[in-house]
């Protein structure tokens, strides 16, 4: 069983479109995250939810909107996609929001904007 699963694995779309990436974890964790990994492999946190409550919201364009329908799911919706949004997006989860909690990562969604 995959602990943190993201869909789709690959997403190729045109500039200006709206797309969503889904994430589900079956670890029973309370906290989930979205990261963006750019072409230089640099990983930066975007959002974090704890029990459906937004707790981390980095400086991200408001075209990006996370949604957590329950604590096992954290989806990422992106409006009006731009070329600079091309990256690999990783979902992660941890048991709770304590700083000592290792995060468990999904395999990533590679987003390519044409």
């Amino acid at each position, binding site marked *: 069983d995959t602990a*943190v699963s993201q869909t789709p694995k690959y997403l190729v779309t045109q500039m200006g479109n709206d797309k969503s990436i889904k994430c589900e974890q079956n670890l029973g964790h309370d*906290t989930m*995250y979205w990261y963006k990994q750019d072409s*230089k*492999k*640099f*990983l*930066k*946190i975007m959002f*974090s939810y*704890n029990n459906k409550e937004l*707790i*981390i919201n980095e400086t991200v364009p408001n075209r990006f909107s996370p949604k957590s329908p329950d604590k096992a799911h954290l989806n990422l919706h992106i409006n009006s996609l731009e070329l600079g949004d091309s990256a690999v997006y*990783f979902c*992660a989860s*941890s048991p*709770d*929001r*304590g*700083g*000592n*909690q*290792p*995060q*468990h*990562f*999904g*395999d*990533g969604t590679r987003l390519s904007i044409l």
Partner: protein
Amino acid sequence: AQSVTQPDIHITVSEGASLELRCNYSYGATPYLFWYVQSPGQGLQLLLKYFSGDTLVQGIKGFEAEFKRSQSSFNLRKPSVHWSDAAEYFCAVARRNNFNKFYFGSGTKLNVKP
């Protein structure tokens, strides 16, 4: 601001040789420290973590890391590298009195020569 530095972008070692990957952080207090490994097309897998106590921590796959407070470093080591260790390695830190907000280094790509 919190920062994590991995000075080596690429490292090549021969199979069977020893390995040390460097990680330095800037933060006033001792953070929580982690090392992750990312294989191509995969998410990040936790290798080991340091919270407190013994400064030499053991991880999976034969890896270990040593926390040195005086040098603000948390270098990853392995006595004998296997070809399957070829991957990208990321150091991460999280502040102790904050939400589980990870700051990642820029990664070190490890190549293993036969």
